[in-house]
């Protein structure tokens, strides 16, 4: 027992990495489809968007980079499909340098999505009328204040250098106050600023999708209803995908949902590892203490 405990307590970290690798890999190869239920904070965000009238405008800020694609990009896709399916117009933008192209790619991917191949899901969508991607602008809070005054003066051109003033969408939507809903998809600390510099100032409801790392710190904003909904990490995104019905829309199990089996497997392993390691640690302390007394 004591020898086994020593082995456990001095286990090479690479063995732990290998087990984590297997916990991730095997459920992806052999899906178990462990069921999960939607939490209230995710349902709130979903229901708010569902309640918008056709023709409403949602501003999506893509404040994330490539490193958090599994948590944020999948959510971006689910949200865009939800909006386009309901004829909700979308203005997307980005406050993070290395996320600029991802925002553009995601918007095009959803707007031009074909299922089955050759059959566009949203054939009537028109760029500049139904959706637009403004691209990246430096300044964070200054940009939020800027679009509070005017979209066209803050973003004279969109991501592909087309003048915003020529787009029908911006003849009607002049500033942030004309937008019906803000959705911040973030891997950085911008959601807190969207609250004070945009949502509260312009009285526009806000929901947030953040990485799991930040989720705990954002619950006070959900509790105060400054965030109408909170979609935290891959788990939140998987719930959102389930609510939107992404499997039906894209014709395969969406990424976050598919990743939940691996997520559960790793969590079970980590919990077991913590229990086992602590058990042997305390056993060792007790053993050492007994030995010291005997000596």
């Amino acid at each position, binding site marked *: 027992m004591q020898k086994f405990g020593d082995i456990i307590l001095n286990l090479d970290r690479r063995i732990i990495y290998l087990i984590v690798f297997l916990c991730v*890999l095997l459920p992806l190869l052999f899906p178990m489809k462990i069921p999960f239920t939607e939490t209230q904070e995710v349902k709130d965000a979903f229901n708010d968007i569902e309640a918008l009238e056709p023709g409403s405008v949602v501003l999506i800020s893509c404040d994330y980079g490539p490193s958090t694609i599994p948590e944020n990009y999948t959510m971006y896709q689910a949200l865009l499909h939800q909006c386009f399916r309901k004829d909700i117009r979308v203005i997307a933008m980005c406050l993070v340098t290395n996320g600029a192209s991802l925002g553009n790619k995601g918007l095009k991917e959803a707007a031009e999505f074909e299922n089955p191949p050759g059959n566009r899901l949203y054939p009537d969508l028109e760029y500049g009328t139904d959706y637009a991607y403004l691209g990246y602008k430096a300044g964070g809070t200054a940009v939020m204040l800027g679009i509070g005054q005017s979209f066209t003066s803050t973003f004279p051109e969109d991501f592909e250098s087309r003048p915003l003033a020529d787009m029908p969408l911006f003849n009607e939507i002049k500033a942030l106050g004309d937008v019906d809903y803000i959705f911040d998809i973030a891997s950085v600390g911008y959601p807190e600023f969207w609250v*004070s*510099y945009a949502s509260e100032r312009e009285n526009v409801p806000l929901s947030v999708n953040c*990485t799991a790392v930040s989720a*705990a710190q954002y619950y006070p904003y959900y509790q*105060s209803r400054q965030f109408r909904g909170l979609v935290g990490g*891959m788990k939140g995104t998987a719930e959102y995908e389930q609510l939107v019905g992404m499997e039906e829309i894209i014709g395969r199990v969406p990424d976050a949902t598919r990743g939940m089996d691996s997520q559960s497997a790793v*969590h079970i392993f980590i919990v077991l590892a913590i229990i086992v390691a602590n058990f042997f640690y305390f056993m060792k302390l007790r053993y050492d203490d007994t030995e010291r007394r005997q000596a």
Partner: protein
Amino acid sequence: MSFMTLLGIWVAALLTFMIFSFLYKDNPIFKVGEAIFLGISLGYGWCIYYWNNIFPQAIKPLFYPGDGERNYLVIIPIILGIFILLRVVPKLAWLSRYSFALYIGGFAGIAVPTEIAGRFLPQVVSTMNPFGPTIPDAIAQIILLIGVFCTIVFFFFSLEHKGAVGTIGRVGVVFIMVAFGAGFGYTVMARVSLLIGRFQFLLRDWIGGTMMGGG
């Protein structure tokens, strides 16, 4: 699948393995992968920054106005920006103070009332909500109040943490530990998510897309 897409997927897969090699031990292949990542991130960031900010808002209005008139007003922020860069020239570094003074003064003027009205006060109000409407809500509200009070007492250093103050402070520590635990749990979840994302890329795009001809 176009040749460039195929090449992109193979390069991405190779770089993923180069970075994963660190898990075995630190090695030159990992260092090369790390350096490529840093270089590309910086280069990409610069291009995006230039074409989304500097060109449309500083250079275009001055030199390529199209059908409109040249906007000479942009010269003022350009000069103020150059002043900030002059910090690297010791003799002219003092000029940056004007830019910073304007920036800090303006931003503080906007930030102070905005933060108080937009974040601080709503958070205080939501902490002091009336109990209810249901019993579980009321219990949650009471726990929240106790947690806020005890944590504030723990961070109150004008009184020695002995007796009642010490006891309340220790309860505050328990609440802080619970918050740390929640944060740690979420962090584990986030990191595992990123690993899942890489595996999904390797299985679907790399193996499925380039070797098996499917998705």
